[in-house]
């Protein structure tokens, strides 16, 4: 049975993003994604289709195993509601009391 390929659609949020300028269309990401959210492009050497963006588990195996990862062919976009909330601060100076330092009881 042939798999249907869709245009990349935003869905409710973005997950995997592919840079068509860098991607060589090798389809390694299609092969390794265990959630099976990517579909190979019918046109050879074209970037895969993100067919099921909402089923991403954000583990990044597609990024990790991408032969073009250093060039940024594929990245995971962290949806806004998943972003890390952070309290920005300064690095404590040497000798200064800082929080959280403790000894093992």
């Amino acid at each position, binding site marked *: 049975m042939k798999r249907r390929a869709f245009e990349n659609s935003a869905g409710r949020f973005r997950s995997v993003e592919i840079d068509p300028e860098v991607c060589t269309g090798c389809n390694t990401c299609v092969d390794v994604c265990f*959630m099976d959210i990517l579909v190979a492009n019918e046109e050879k050497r074209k970037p895969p289709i993100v067919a099921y963006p909402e089923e991403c588990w954000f583990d*990044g195996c597609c990024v*990790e195993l991408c032969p073009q990862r250093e060039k940024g062919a594929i990245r995971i976009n962290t949806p806004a509601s998943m*972003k890390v909330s952070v309290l920005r*601060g300064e690095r404590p100076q040497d000798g200064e009391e800082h*929080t*959280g330092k*403790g000894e*093992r009881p």
Partner: protein
Amino acid sequence: MKSGMEVVTIETDVLVIGGGLAGCMAAIGAREHGARVTIAEKGNTMSSGQAGSGIDHIWAYIPDIHDRVGWSIDDLVDDHVQVVAGGFARRDLFRLMAEMSYARLLDLERFGLRMRYDDSPLTGGLRLVQQFGSIPETVNLDGRRLKVILTNAVKRSGATIVNRVTMTDLLTADSAIAGAVGIGTRDGKIYLFKAKGVVLATGGKTGRLGREPSGIDFNLHLPANLCCDGKAMAYQAGLPVMNMEFLSSSIFAVANYGFSAGLPRNTWHPAAAVVDAQGRVLVANTHLYPWDELKTGNKIDPAVSRRAWLAERNTLSGSMPKAGSWGERGPFYLDCTGASEEEIRYTEWSIGNEGRGAQFLRHLDEEGIDLRRDKLELSPHGHRREIGNMSCSGLLVDGNLEATIRGLFVAGDEIGGVPFASSMGAFTTGWHCGDVTGSEARTAEPFLPIDNDVFERRCRSCTEMLSRSKGAPWQEVNSALQNVMDDYCGEVRTEAMLVKGLDHLKAIKGIPLRAANPHELGRCLEVMFLLDAGEMVIRASLARKESRRQPLPFRRADFPEQDDKNWLAFSAVRLENGKPTVFGIPINAPL
């Protein structure tokens, strides 16, 4: 009706269901006996399973180090059973794991995993951290690509890997295993496996029975394709499934990212402390390596060390803010700013090698977050409920890991009664199952007859889902199930609500599912597993007429007391002639 589905028949001596850590080790173990071995994996073994994005630590009993300080294998087992599981565990199975653990560690090294470091003064350059045992018993490793390394080892062993097949049914013949059925979620074919032995290594857990509070459905601590597949298959085949009532809140939550770390004792050991907005310390960070005893080789007193460790763990869990009940005390932060540069580097190394950690670090980098300077907020979300580590749910097996039907062996987290057995539990039990099934396959009789009813029913059901023009997409049914589990089977349960929940579940089970293609068919099958899992959770919850404290939280408003007389026992739910029944299994571990 044979349906429009093309049938692929595969004959193999040993069928391994699930290609995670346990499944890969089972395949390699069975190949040692020359058996024909096939792994059926629903994703791709290169990245699938709970260790799919890596592990940086794994417990093991290291004779050269542990024996020298007077800490025996039994001490390791006692630590785990008593401190981690509160006695609610199968001691015999933990001993089996512990005995084999060092050999499996050496296997991993043989496969190409790096685990010896120049900065360790310990025997053999191993770097030990403390996790479950009262002394450091957990080995660091460069495990980011563990699944790639294991996949290569499986291929070298000569086992066959069939990826993208979701297994759906165990086939039995006269109380023995005959094979299994699966669905190709890319090719849309139905797979019939005939096998002399089957290893069930499907991971056992799920995070998809409850609503995900971030609104991103698959922002889960556990891999999102884990749906209690093996338990549902076993349940439908009439096998007992243990301890399903312990659907409970996950302890993991850093910010809104369901990243698998959260306590300073886990992947954030040793650099992180937990502080409140005023910088007051709730949990202090710890030394980088508590190696003094191990280095000197001075004898320790395991009983004293266990009591201290138990007290420390209780203090730790008592001082951690409980998600959802922060009241006026929040917000809270994970604070690494007091850590040394060496500790920060170690922590980043550790996170980078552990489940989803590399991606988490990329996210921090993109956001310009530096652990040296910035504190990460702990998630205030109320619940992120799962059948997880603490559930100790799974199949009932004997001391040889054989299930209640002949020839079916169970590995890894699919085994009941072994909470937090974790990756070493998977490696050891996987290997053992492979070893036994591989060796028995040589003398086994020819293939047993296949239960055509089960096979035909699956064909028909899948054909219907693929051909229906009307019907619910899997998301609709999954979401309805989550509502029932959260609203009728929440943290505090009552008989009346559980009974009503079962009613709702029955109605949801009757909704016809629709799949536009094999990919969606796979997701529909997952939802069907989840529906069975939900039913097992409710039935087991109804049976346990007591409340239980940590580490196995279970609360019945109508039975608020702990009842050790009747319920210091595992539960097991099974279908008897199609009728669900629940029974208790006394715990064999001394408390």
